[in-house]
């Protein structure tokens, strides 16, 4: 969209997108038409934009911006970079590239009716990573495996099941009952006993789900009875779990078949997909999808793995069926295929108008940057409803860089708590350095006086280190690791703190961050905020790290702070002190996550707006 705005401004530029056009894009991505479905977005966008402005110079790259080909030299060719990304990894990466190349960056996001735009300039403003963004919500293993209480738990379970049966098996995506669930134990000793007992039984732990399924020939009825009868009956034996919870009720394939009634087709006016299915209908859906997926696997040959895709009907049907059957077992209201698709597919609703507003704002900020008027740049939030000061669009002064930012500070440094005996080198690389700290190709040296190289970004060089623990290399409490990502021109010093006391399912903790809290139950705005910052995957809690980026149009919906009143007209609309509304005071508490809370009482109290006492800095969205 801002491609078309920019053309009016008459400049040359490049656009990069790895994605192709889908029919669901057409309700808002107006540079594309039906005939373009399947083609490269970057390429078609260029062609359409050239229609508006044949004289402008556009280069299109059908590629990922994280490709090392787009190095600092590449970025330096541009006067300005504008992001319209849909995942945090890419945003972090571009943030670093722009810092390295010292090019101004305009960041933005949108979701539904909300959106925001901001400007990032090295040394002048906060970078994208100065403020920790809430990480995507994940659920504890035992909630998924033993005690689901919400439909989303069942959907996550069903997606794990898909991977266990048809895709890449992941040790963190277990679906069988968790015998080591601390809640299940009457006495602490019980937990250990149960764990070993099931090993002896052999059915749960020893044989992988995929192997077992293969041994039955992926027989739907057998799969069904294991997952929805036997495993549930096992859960029932863990009686402590059901003391205060409603116990699950197992299903039996044969019984259901015998008592099956024809599915009522409701005469409702909804989409076909919006109808909730009956239990036998779900059984049939389960059967059909298993059979189809089984053939897909067979066709692909030996050692094949399927990747879950919401746009692949049998894959979605499978998750719909499995999740709903589990919801039924656990006495929850079931969800229609339409809703399951939203939740499982992390679909973020998006419309043309919101994106038009955000695109317009991006261009306006861009024009300021290009005219050298950086001091007039702002962060601007788009709300659904006007706030108490009647603002629908809220400009906020940009914050200066954070001195302790682990990306843009002059000597970035972090401290990480982990267990040096249990954390492997591979885990350090993938979970901590890449996932958590956004590096693409880290090189790690231990500050041990010998410059021991722990991880090399060159393929194959340090692969033998991967399965070893950090302790094996002499890393212990207080050790320091020098980490470099040469593509991002980023050097980070990691201080290691050894601990044996991490929470269950938690592998490491970054010191100085508020622990991940579930957002308080609130208006849509809070929900959207937890989707915040462009993590496509975090529209719902992580259901798969390997799922390809889904919907476009991301949302940094950080509908945060109030702004300065720089009316510029006259004394009758007096300016107010802007500093009072900024959340600098929050920095002391270290509760950085609260900086983004709208309902910040301290800031509201500090607001010395000459206007009203009723100004709570609360933005009512509803």
């Amino acid at each position, binding site marked *: 969209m801002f491609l078309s705005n920019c053309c009016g401004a008459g400049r040359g530029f490049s656009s990069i997108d790895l994605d192709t056009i889908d029919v669901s894009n057409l309700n808002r991505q107006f540079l594309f038409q039906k005939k373009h479905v399947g083609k490269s977005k970057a390429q078609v966008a260029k062609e359409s934009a050239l229609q508006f402005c044949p004289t402008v110079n556009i280069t299109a790259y059908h590629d990922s911006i994280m490709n090392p080909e787009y190095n600092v030299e590449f970025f330096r060719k541009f006067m300005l970079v504008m992001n319209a990304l849909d995942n945090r990894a890419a945003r972090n990466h571009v943030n670093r590239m722009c810092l390295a190349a010292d090019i101004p960056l305009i960041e933005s996001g949108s979701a539904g009716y909300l959106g925001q735009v901001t400007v990032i300039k090295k040394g002048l403003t906060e970078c994208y990573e100065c403020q920790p963004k809430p990480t995507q919500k994940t659920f504890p293993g035992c909630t998924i495996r033993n005690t689901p209480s919400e439909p989303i738990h069942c959907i996550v379970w069903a997606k794990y099941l898909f991977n266990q049966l048809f895709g890449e098996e992941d040790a963190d995506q277990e679906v069988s009952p968790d015998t080591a669930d601390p809640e299940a134990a009457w006495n602490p000793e019980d937990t250990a006993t149960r764990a070993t007992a099931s090993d002896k039984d052999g059915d749960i732990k020893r044989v992988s789900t995929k192997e077992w399924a293969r041994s039955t020939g992926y027989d739907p009825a057998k799969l069904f009875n294991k997952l929805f009868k036997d495993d549930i009956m096992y859960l029932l034996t863990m009686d402590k779990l059901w003391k205060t919870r409603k116990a699950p009720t197992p299903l039996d394939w044969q019984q259901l078949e015998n008592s099956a009634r024809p599915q009522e087709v409701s005469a409702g006016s909804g989409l076909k997909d919006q109808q909730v299915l009956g239990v036998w209908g779900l059984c049939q859906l389960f059967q059909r999808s298993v059979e189809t997926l089984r053939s897909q696997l067979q066709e692909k040959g030996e050692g094949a793995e399927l990747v879950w895709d919401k746009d692949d009907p049998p894959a979605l049907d499978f998750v719909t069926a499995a999740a709903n059957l589990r919801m039924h077992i656990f006495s929850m*209201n079931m969800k229609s295929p339409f809703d399951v698709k939203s939740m499982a597919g992390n679909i973020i609703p*998006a*419309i043309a108008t*919101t994106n038009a507003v955000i695109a317009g704002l991006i261009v306006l900020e861009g024009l300021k940057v290009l005219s050298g008027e950086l001091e007039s740049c702002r962060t601007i939030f788009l709300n659904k409803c006007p706030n108490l000061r009647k603002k629908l669009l809220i400009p906020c002064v940009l914050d200066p860089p954070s001195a302790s930012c682990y990306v843009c500070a002059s000597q970035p440094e972090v401290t990480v708590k982990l267990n040096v005996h249990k954390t492997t080198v591979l885990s350090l690389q993938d979970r901590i350095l890449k996932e958590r700290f956004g590096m693409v190709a880290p090189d790690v040296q231990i500050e041990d006086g010998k410059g021991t190289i722990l991880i090399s970004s060159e393929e194959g060089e340090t692969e033998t280190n991967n399965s070893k623990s950090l302790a094996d290399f002499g890393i212990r409490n207080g050790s320091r690791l020098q980490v470099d990502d040469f593509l991002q021109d980023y050097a980070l010093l990691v201080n290691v703190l050894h601990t044996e006391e991490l929470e269950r399912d938690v592998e490491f903790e970054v010191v100085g961050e508020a622990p991940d809290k579930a957002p308080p139950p609130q208006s849509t705005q809070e929900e959207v905020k937890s989707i915040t910052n462009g993590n496509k995957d975090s529209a719902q809690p992580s259901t798969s790290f390997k799922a390809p980026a889904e919907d476009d149009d991301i949302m940094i919906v950080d509908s945060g702070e109030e702004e300065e009143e720089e009316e510029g007209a006259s004394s009758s609309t007096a300016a107010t002190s802007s500093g009072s509304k900024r959340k600098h005071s929050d920095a002391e508490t270290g509760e950085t996550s609260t900086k983004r809370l709208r309902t910040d009482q301290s800031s509201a109290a500090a607001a010395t707006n000459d206007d009203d006492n009723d100004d709570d800095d609360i933005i009512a969205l509803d």
Partner: protein
Amino acid sequence: MIDMIEKEDPVISEEEAAQYDRQIRLWGLDAQKRLRGSRVLLAGLGGLGAEVAKNLILAGVKGLTLLDHEQVTEESCRAQFLVPVTAQGQNRAQASLERGQNLNPMVKVHADQDRVEDKPDDFFLQFDAVCLTGCSRDLMVRIDQLCSKHNIKVFCGDVYGYYGYMFCNLGKEHSYVEEKPKMVKPTGNSSDGPEAKKAKIDPNETTMVKKMASFCTLKEALEVDWTTEKAKAGMKRTPVDYFMLHVLLTFRTDKGRDPDPLAFPEDSRLLRKIREDVLETLAVSADLLNDDFISYCFSEMSPVCAVVGGVLGQEVVKALSQRDAPHRNFFFFDGRKGNGVVDYFGPN
């Protein structure tokens, strides 16, 4: 007219469901059906008009009539992306038709080359909503009066350089729904335990709450009496954009056009004069609105058209679908500051 929709054609086709998927997931199927049954008139295909046209066509209204008697100029091509650069000299509505239609073949897009002022009253009655851009103040007032008598939703909007506004009149009794989270009552038996007994907000269930809003006419909105005590007291919180709008509408009436960059010196002088006169006539302080805006109100800036067109487009969608609280009754955008405010002007 909108209420008859559901009897017309309750089924959404697979093609529509696929294309509108991401918006149906936002505003729901009912809203989409109402849009599908709505006919809209859009007058003025300048930069703002093109943005509104694009937004409504993508949203999936039943029909959109593009009404414009003007010809395509070189400047139109810059701020307006529906008109091909080769179309200079053609009628603007006609030139916008092809690209407009291609945005969404499921919408019936028409081009009409007549002047708005020449249209008979009953012309407007075939529409559920009318959106006026580039019209004179008197014309807007007249059409607003006519339409609101017949329960037709009225929208006005313009972009002047970095500035833009939107006005709407949805009638005295505009009803709509809002989606709210549902409170779930405890169902449990005593054997279920304390957890099951608590009432909670079910994050997955929502309910629709019916609401009503009332709007005044454009005439009333523009003819606010600023000499009353109440008006004077509220002055501090009043966006000066409202007065800027008066100045620009007066200019348009006087000159029959908007400020032209090619006539910058004379037009600036005239704007200054009009500013003084307007503030005096309205009996408000001459300090209220200074001359700064004058340098920045020439020409339609395309990003400003995008912002105002986005807000205006969404208001039309909301009104037609009768879902979500409408902005009442003006929206002003200042593109230099990035400020967007909603405020009500009219009798209380």
